[in-house]
């Protein structure tokens, strides 16, 4: 088949039928086997470890934590996936969301607005900052041909430095604390959590619904609109898109702006739902987790949702391992193996499907032109 490995890796080509079902299941099973072997080699009880994780991960309190983590991961993976669908590698989601959350937290802490407008303002500011930061890479690519991989990685580093400077400028000192953070956002700007899971006093981020809405929006934008068609066409074949009249440079800028705007949302559930301030220990690295989950979910909003939940489940269930003297790094190994084996499984499934579809086409055509006339073999 003519699609490149990258195309398949990034889900710009689709899988269908039962193979797309079998691929992730086999991959996760495989990852489970590898993890079991690692556990066995390191002298840990395999079955007990896994049941302990599952048992702990299925408690109501853990379910809340899983949902909350997954909300953040989902937004991050969607931001990455949007770029991936167009063949744009926005590696800079990490810097985009951190800078965006910082600025948004500072703005949110500095103003007071009536309840519905305060969080909306904060979210909009965050999206704008994320979009602007990603937009730099988009403009550089469109006007100067700078690879977005390089520029976004550099922008990550710049965002770190700029963020450290701005945080030092804006932070309010708290007596006795070695931490520094932006002024806390007033109650009017906070998004209350929801007691969605019975049996736990912990609350689910109110912005879980925002994540769901973004997922639906992602699907609609990509699959139902002209813009989405142009974006996907560019991702599948840039040359074909150019020939079909797509202004690829403009698409690059737009896609980066949208991806960055979505990146701006990543920090919001935590900021508006739990910490209310951007401080030194605001969770970093979510942009990179998003890349892994986007790959896991093949850049498809439904696939990513399950990927994010799986990832969050593993992360949360890792908490219990330390209590049993099992290194929580086992979960990192598991996550790595899952991503790797899912990628391989999709690749195998794709090859299988490519051959199968061509066979199906020729079979159905042969069936349609049945009763082949006996033609004379004479010269």
């Amino acid at each position, binding site marked *: *088949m*003519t*699609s490149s490995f990258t*195309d398949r890796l990034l889900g*710009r*080509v*689709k899988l269908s039928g039962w193979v797309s079902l079998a691929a992730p299941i086999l991959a996760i099973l495989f990852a489970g086997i590898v993890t079991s072997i690692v556990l066995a080699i390191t002298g840990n009880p395999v079955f007990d470890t896994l049941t302990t994780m599952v048992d702990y991960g299925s408690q109501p309190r853990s379910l809340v934590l899983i949902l909350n983590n997954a909300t953040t991961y989902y937004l991050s993976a969607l931001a990455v996936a949007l770029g991936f669908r167009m063949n744009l590698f926005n590696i800079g989601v990490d810097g985009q969301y951190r800078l965006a959350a910082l600025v948004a937290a500072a703005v949110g802490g500095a103003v007071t607005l009536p309840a519905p407008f305060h969080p909306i303002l904060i979210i909009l500011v965050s999206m704008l900052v994320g979009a602007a930061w990603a937009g730099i890479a988009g403009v550089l690519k469109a006007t100067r041909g700078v690879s977005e991989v390089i520029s976004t990685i550099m922008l990550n580093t710049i965002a770190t430095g700029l963020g450290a400077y701005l945080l030092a400028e804006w932070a309010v000192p708290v007596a006795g604390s070695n931490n520094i953070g932006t002024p806390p956002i007033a109650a009017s700007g906070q998004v209350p959590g929801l007691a969605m899971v019975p049996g736990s006093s912990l609350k689910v981020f109110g912005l879980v619904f925002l994540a769901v809405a973004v997922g639906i929006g992602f699907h609609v934008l990509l*699959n*139902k*609109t*002209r*813009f*989405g*068609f*142009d974006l*996907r*066409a560019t991702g*599948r*074949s840039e*040359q*074909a898109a*150019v*020939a*079909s*009249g*797509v*202004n690829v440079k403009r698409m690059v800028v737009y896609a980066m702006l949208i991806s960055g705007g979505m990146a701006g949302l990543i920090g919001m559930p935590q900021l508006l739902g739990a910490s209310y301030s951007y401080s030194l220990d605001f969770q970093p690295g979510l942009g990179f987790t998003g890349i892994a989950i986007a790959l896991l979910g093949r850049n498809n909003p439904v696939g990513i949702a399950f990927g994010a939940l799986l990832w969050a489940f593993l992360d949360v269930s890792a908490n219990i391992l330390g209590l049993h003297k099992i290194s929580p790094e086992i979960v990192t190994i598991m996550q790595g193996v899952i991503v790797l084996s899912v990628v391989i499984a999709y690749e195998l499934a794709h090859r299988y499907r*490519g051959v199968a*579809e*061509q*066979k*199906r*086409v*020729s*079979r*159905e*055509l*042969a*069936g*349609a032109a049945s009763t*082949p006339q006996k*033609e*004379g*073999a*004479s*010269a």
Partner: protein
Amino acid sequence: MISTGPLGTLTQEASISTETTVSEVAVQLEGITKRFPGVVANRDISLTVQKGHIHAIVGENGAGKSTLMKILYGMQRPDEGEIRVNGSPVTFHTPGDAISAGIGMVHQHFMLADNLTVLENVILGSEPRKGGLALDFAAARKKIKDISDAYGLGIDPDVLVEDIGVGIRQRVEILKVLYRGARILILDEPTAVLVPHEVDELFENLHGLVREGITIIFISHHLDEVLKVADAITVIRRGTTVAEVSPEGVTARQLAELMVGSELPSPETRESTVTDVVALQVTGLTIGADGERRVLDDVTLTIHKGEVLGIAGVEGNGQAELVEAIMGIRPSTGTITLAGEEITSWTTLRRREAGIGYIPEDRHRHGLLLEAPLWENRILGHQSEKVNVKGWWINRKGARADTERIVEQYDVRTPGIDVDAAALSGGNQQKLIVGREMSGEPKLLIAAHPTRGVDVGAQAAIWDHLRTARAAGLAVLLISADLDELIGLSDWLKVIHRGAVVAEFDPATVTPEQLGSAMTGAGEEA
């Protein structure tokens, strides 16, 4: 050399290796049957290839040629039947088995690493060792030289592959399989990528090879080439051998009819439908800065409604750039006017919306989203056409319905519009593109090599569609390397050489010799 006339008037040339009288059989296939689930790709195929012959295998796309060759090269195993090489039965499990039996394959798409030298490419995978680890380049170089000299391939082992032309690359591929000891060569569509004079060089090389006792199995669509070079021809249709002919006793037209199993239409356009209304006016179109070599040099041309303007030329002389400039994909200077409106500064999308249809030269890269279903491919390039969209939204229903229409009207053979474009054969892909580009009532159709790499049946259908559209008042810019197609379809011919229009001909009176000399630049001095 461009020595072939329109299909019907082709004359035979005697094949040179007919003096091989001792008929020793190199390859014999008997009763080969290969089934894929639900479909029989090869059915009871029998084939006998004489040693030292160039044996051509012709057939439509999808007739089963590739499967047969894959079986012979060990990439697939037959369900029934027997393969004998040099008289002894063999069973191949992998291409490696075939290679050790002396069978080598030269693929249509070259498998060479650009950044390595010819020598490195040739030895890649079978590196000669010296003292265990070190590569013995000297021995390899000598062996390559010897092979090159013995068969007259004229290859310098120490140049980088990126610095050599397509024709030489192909000879490197041939050398590569000879280096591995092949005595029987399978060439898959070897001329598809070559310009006419390179084709002639290839044929000389092939004759050189058979003189040295090499056997060649030659797969092609180009019937006139097959007739020119082959010692024996086997025709495959629907998975089975339908005829075994000698090139002396058959014309290209007869051969084509054997392939498709029916009467064959010719590309010739009978009556003129040219009107006075100018559809496209291109003036002074130039690409390339002053002082540099211009890729496109001051090209001026006019196409009227109902007219087909053919552009002849050896590939790489500015045809692709001309097309891209008119489409607005590549920046250029000069003016372009479509139906009286100047479109020079318009974007590609706006030009398309204004009524330019575009059949690109490379349909896989420019014309299709291979991994997308047919109905999405229907939208490609027509993202603002009414059936496809409603404002910002994709009109899924409309696009699907119109795809069904194209599939129906243009005889795209597919089980449905949800299959990926990649699953279709080349001819059916091209019919889909033609149907798409003809929809929305275009004013101008740019057709770059519209029948390249498609089978005879699809070719005839595409010619038919072009003629019908022309009669309905469409202006067509036709770029083709197939002189029969150009002469047969065009109302007027321009020859492009080094980016400039160097000659014009009336296709009714032009001879292939005139065209050929103009294309190679000989006309300039004359």
